């Protein structure tokens, strides 16, 4: 049992280390010192100095990642490779931007209401591919791609015409009511109440998935649907509820990005955050704690690359993306080196055993 756990932890860690090493080699090729790059990445991704500490900004940008990561993770847990988070995220954001600009209620009523409605709409949006999959056997990847495209075009249309705030250059909606802006711990950092909500949701998810009967059903359906059905678990129902819950969470991510960060919605709002959720869930080994750590790591690397590398070392910030891509690549090819890793771990264990007895 201990070894099983050890290998689960060793996989993402070694993928990250290998990814960093490979990136450093790449950097060395360009003639910049890899060590200084590493140092800048750490300082500008996770440091505490500066007007707004980079770490706070990282925590801020990690928030939507945690939520879309959690949404993707729920899909994985129930055995569905759902990539629909992107569209659900956009749907949540649209509702938040629309209500945020048009509601005229005191904020203690309006803000929860906006959140709930955003989640509800995103959940309905997620229900479509879920039903298509369960009832008609439509491949979830294909339907998700279509749903994502539809959401993206709906957004482009809305911000270009009905919701457009001014005739300016950029197609964007009006700024939402100032009272509805979510509180930020450090102004300008994006790190605020939404982070707390995301963390709470991760914790709740952990307990529901691993400690309740409902979560048990989700895990069993995901791991072996024949087994689940044989034991009387209604797998169709479980898949549908899990996927719609995930959709609601992805929608909440979009909603809180609007309320807490952008305060409006604009063309190109969906910058792939939904897809990042997939990487987060995969690298995080489909575990809430993993999702938490990986979200912060990814956000930090991006932050460091954008802030530090580009500005102080004039290394293109795409390096951050390259680094992340390399890490994902090493996870994807982990089957190649997993046996070696397992052997290493078991050798260590055998040594320990010998010492003991």
């Amino acid at each position, binding site marked *: *049992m201990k*070894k*099983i756990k050890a290998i689960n932890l060793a996989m993402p860690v070694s993928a990250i280390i290998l990814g960093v090493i490979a990136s450093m080699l790449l950097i060395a090729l360009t003639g910049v010192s890899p060590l200084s790059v590493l140092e800048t990445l750490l300082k500008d991704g996770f440091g505490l100095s500066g007007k707004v500490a980079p770490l706070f900004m990282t925590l801020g940008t990690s928030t939507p990642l945690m939520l879309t990561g959690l949404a993707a993770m729920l899909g994985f847990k129930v055995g569905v490779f759902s990539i629909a988070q992107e569209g659900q995220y956009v749907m949540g954001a649209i509702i938040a931007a629309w209500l945020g600009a048009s509601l005229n209620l005191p904020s203690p009523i309006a803000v929860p209401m906006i959140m709930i409605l955003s989640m509800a709409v995103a959940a309905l949006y997620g229900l479509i591919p879920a039903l298509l999959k369960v009832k008609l056997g439509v491949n979830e990847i294909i339907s998700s791609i279509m749903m994502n495209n539809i959401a993206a075009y709906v957004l482009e249309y809305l911000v270009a015409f009905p919701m457009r705030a001014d005739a300016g250059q950029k197609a964007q909606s009006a700024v939402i009511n100032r009272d509805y802006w979510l509180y930020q711990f450090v102004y300008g950092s994006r790190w605020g109440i939404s982070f707390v909500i995301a963390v709470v949701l991760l914790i709740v998810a952990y*307990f529901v998935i691993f*400690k*309740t*009967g409902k979560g*048990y*059903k989700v*895990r*069993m359906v995901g*791991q*072996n649907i*024949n*087994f*689940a*059905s*044989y*034991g*009387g*678990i*209604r797998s169709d129902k479980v898949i549908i509820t899990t996927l719609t819950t995930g959709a609601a969470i992805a929608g909440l991510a979009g909603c809180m990005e609007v309320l807490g960060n952008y305060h409006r919605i604009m063309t190109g709002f969906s910058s792939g955050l939904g897809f990042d959720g997939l990487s987060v869930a995969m690298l995080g080994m489909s575990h809430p704690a993993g999702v938490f750590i990986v979200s912060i790591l990814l956000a930090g690397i991006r932050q460091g690359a954008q802030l530090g590398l580009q500005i102080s070392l004039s290394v293109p910030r795409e390096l951050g993306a390259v680094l992340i891509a390399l890490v994902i690549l090493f996870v994807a090819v982990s089957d190649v080196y997993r046996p070696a890793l397992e052997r290493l771990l*078991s050798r260590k*264990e*055998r040594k320990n*055993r010998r010492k003991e007895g």
Partner: protein
Amino acid sequence: MNAITFENISKYYPSTEVQASDNVSFSIRKGEIHAICGENGAGKSTLMNILFGLERMDSGRILINEEEVTLRNASDALAHGIGMVHQHFKLVPSFTVAESILLGTEEKPFISKKSEVEAVRELSEKYSLPIDPSALIDTLPVGMLQRVEILKMLIRNVEILILDEPTAVLTPNEVGPFLDTLRNLKERGKTIIFISHKLQEVLDASDRITVMRKGKFIGTKESKETNIYELADMMVGRKVLLSVDKKPSVPGETILSVENINVTSSSGLKILDNVSFSVRRGEIYGIAGVSGNGQEALIKAIAGEVQVRSGVIRISGKEVQNLSVEQKRKAGMAYVPEDRVHVGLNVEASLLDNSLLGYEDEKCFKKGMFLDEKKLRERAEKMISDYQIYGSSVDGLVSKLSGGNMQKVVLAREFEHVPDLLIVEQPVRGLDVGSIEFVHKAIIEERDKGTAVLLVSVELDEILSLSDRVGVMYSGSLAGELSGDEINETNIALLMVGKKGGVE
């Protein structure tokens, strides 16, 4: 001359803390059929996987034709003329027979379809293993798939062929021809190693038999000079009862009643034709028959969710034919399915998770909103000790258990809520003699507690030794029902081929 010599082979699995191979030494002669027997988890597959390069040994030497070799992977083994057919076939469903057999042997990237088919036909004639080279894999029955796997090895010119439990997947009437195939291969000079739990067939087919127990080599016997009893005792390390003791049944009220049920396949074919029978408290009702005569559909209708076209199924008086599995279980049904690896268990999950299925909503296992982990753990621990489940802890993965121990996990869970109706399907497939004894005893104990037991088995021996009454399925309907003295091999065998006159 020895084809293979194992010298002091040891292998320890740290994850399960099992010494799967413990200083094993013995040899296999060139051109013999050598059977390997042993309880579930004795280390037979592990040793064979080492020989085929799939597992690394910790220490020891392997000699092939008296020369030491290093086997790092399957291609090393193939290069030394060793081939292996696994218990679970690894074939691509959409390939043809010819493609499957030739996969990986192509020297040129593009071989014409014609020459592929020719090559396979030639091979199959050479070894008299007839097969249609252009048939699609997913249309073939298990016996044919096995033939494909064997041909796949033969085309690679292997001299030594390892077969891991080849007969476990075959129906009783496929076994005879299969053993002929082995003899035939032997005549052509091949060396055969095969693993089996069926001692009679081992005695019939092999030249020598090696017995393993708990990772250790126990002994090698000439098949002519030994018998079932000696082998069983060597395997288990104590006297084994090869037939079960059971008191006459004391049947009570009717628990399961099946009345005139009909089931049609999606293409309109009649699968079940007006089947009626009932099972009472305290009796074991055996369903016999050659596999594929509707047993599967019958069990699906009773224990699963299948549209019954007409007819009524009752459990303790309650109509259940249109109910969900959950509701049927609530009505008092427990079910030990045929396929424990894919259905009865979630092998990628822990023993704890596997013990919980069907109980996850029970109030008594909850503490507030949460599952009462402490209670569930204690319950799983108790299952491990009550059923002598060997090879894993509560948190260990079920996939690491041997077949017999896997089956014990299923039994422990299904027996726990003292069901009114217990359905058991091929309960001892792939199990060793010791485990068979255990499982059979457990089923009889359930009966004696007052459970109505419905047993489905294609093994005549099992039906004969367990059943109080027997129904024989033939082409979708019940060909006849036997009880008391009528239950004997001749009567069942006649009904199995549809001869109604079998019973007077």
